[in-house]
């Protein structure tokens, strides 16, 4: 994957209202070139609105959007050349063949003749649909339809591919296929901005994450940063057969322990994140003669962590 810190998309203080409903409030975030940026948030948090504004289908009330260094409102002609957009619905003409569907969008993107044919076959190859050109779109599976949408968006070799909830309505097996396609595109250097409510899937291929809530970007950072944060907040549960006070005393003295709470013989210990923190604590307790019955780092999945962050129902 191409590592770069040059922002390919920069959204600054974008506001959007629909009548009295405020969909976006001072939305700001950026996506670096070569990265896969995942946008997560509860339903109605403004993800799709933000994406529609970025691709120019909606006008922001205020704020600026720059794509590849160009102001989206100043240089719309250039912008359309740099982006590929896959909306949250398939957007397919089911009575066309795959080849005809792709040809239509190639021509709509100004591609003709040899160049169009080459781009079509490249795009279909990228998403693993080569050999399906003669199939009616209607006869494709959900995953294939979604991949066809991505192929369509890749026709103009966009520098920024925008996917609005591509996993929606796709079963588990097909989701894996789609995930592989997105991974491949990312590996080829395409910057991807993806919104999804499938947080677990996002963790597998996103390099960055933005958490949206109430029409604003609540937190943005690298996936590593969020994973660390989620691990750090997981408490250690220690069950004892006695000597609870002694155990609390030992734990209070330990460097990496941030907080200890006790519920009879069950201790909840919040610790700083370091590699051997569990080993150190267990060793200290055993050395102090505390009878440890069980010692467990509580598992909180990433989805629950994000849900906690957004305070919603992601």
């Amino acid at each position: 994957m191409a590592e770069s810190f040059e922002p390919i998309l920069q959204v600054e203080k974008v506001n959007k209202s629909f009548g009295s409903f405020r969909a976006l409030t001072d939305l700001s975030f950026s996506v670096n070139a070569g990265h896969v940026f995942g946008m997560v948030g509860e339903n109605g948090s403004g993800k799709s609105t933000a994406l529609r504004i970025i691709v120019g289908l909606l006008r922001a009330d205020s704020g600026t959007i720059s794509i590849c260094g160009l102001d989206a409102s100043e240089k719309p002609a250039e912008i359309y050349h740099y982006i590929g957009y896959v909306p949250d619905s398939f957007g397919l003409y089911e009575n066309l063949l795959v080849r005809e569907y792709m040809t239509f969008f190639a021509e709509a993107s100004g591609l003709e003749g040899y160049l169009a044919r080459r781009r079509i076959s490249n795009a279909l190859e990228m998403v693993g649909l080569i050999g399906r050109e003669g199939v009616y779109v209607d006869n494709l599976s959900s995953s294939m339809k979604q991949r066809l949408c991505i192929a369509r968006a890749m026709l103009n070799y966009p520098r920024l591919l925008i996917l609005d909830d591509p996993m929606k309505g796709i079963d588990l097996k097909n989701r894996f296929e789609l995930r592989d396609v997105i991974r491949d595109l990312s590996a080829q250097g395409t910057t991807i901005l993806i919104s999804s409510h499938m947080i677990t899937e996002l963790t597998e291929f996103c390099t960055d994450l933005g958490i949206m809530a109430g029409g604003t970007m609540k937190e943005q950072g690298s996936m590593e940063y969020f994973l660390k944060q989620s691990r750090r907040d997981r408490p250690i549960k220690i069950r004892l057969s006695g000597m609870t006070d002694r155990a609390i005393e030992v734990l209070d003295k330990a460097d990496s322990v941030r907080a200890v709470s006790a519920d009879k013989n069950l201790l909840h210990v919040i610790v700083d994140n370091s590699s051997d923190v569990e080993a150190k604590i267990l060793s200290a307790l055993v050395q102090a003669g505390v009878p440890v019955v069980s010692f467990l780092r509580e598992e909180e999945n990433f989805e629950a962590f994000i849900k906690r962050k957004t305070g919603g129902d992601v």
Partner: protein
Amino acid sequence: MQKNPVLKREVRANMRSPKLILSIIGFNLVLALSGFIFLAFFEEAQPLERLFLELFFQENAASSMSDNELAYNSIRLLYCLLIMLEFVLLFFIIPTLTGSMIAGEREHQTLDLMLTTQLTPKTIVFGKLLAMMKTILMILISTLPILSLVNVFGSFSVFDMIASFGVMLVVSFFLGSIGLLFSAWIKRSVPATLCTYIVLLGLCILPLMLVRLTPELIGSSGGRPATFAYTLAMLMNPLLTVVCLLKMRFGAEASFISYLESTTHLASDSPIARHWLIMSLLFQVTVAYLLVLLSTKYLQPRYRRREMNGAIKERMSSETETETEDEKE
């Protein structure tokens, strides 16, 4: 014209749809059956034919016609009946064709995809309209054999057929532009189709009813001429255009002009009244064009500009050259 990808796709999709075949079959079946019924019951229907001839074309002449003269005129009446039927069928078909053209794209969320390409709203709307016109053209061409059968009796010339064909095309363009406007304005297909029917019905019937029922409303009471707006409404009335065409073919132009004189603010010697058919067709084409332009307004994504095409084409041509060179290497 074929450079328009929307037109190409629409035509391709229409050709595959059973709707086109069914429309053509239905259209011709109605015309053929009507003609057959007319001819089959010719003898029994003579009093009715006399009445129609008197009412619409020859006024008092029909009552004094011999049976042979009536027979000759009846064939012409059959032709008029078929042309009127054609108009009525187009009146019902066009809103169903256009109602879902833009609204359907919105419902399937394909409009957004098109708008994120280089297609301008104008290209999309004109592509759709031309595709509809191609469908109508095919339907009209398919009816030519039936109309030609009437021509065998010698009552009408080829020129009459060409003239009626041209008028039907222009009227279809006008009706289609209204349907397309509603399809672009109203987001759902069914309400868009219904609104088109209501407006078209109002456009065809209302001006004719107003002048009979409430002449005060259009300002023509007490011998005063009707308002200019009413005259424009009459010019925009496709039903009146078709009636004018038929009256002209029957040599009843004078009665039509006197009807105009009595209902609009036009004098019988005014150029608009004397060339009503051409004037109304020109007016309808102009209005249709303006309506199509108005339709594009409802498709405008906010950041798009018209000059985008030029900029991108320039860029694409330079890329094409680069890619072709790469490929050769």
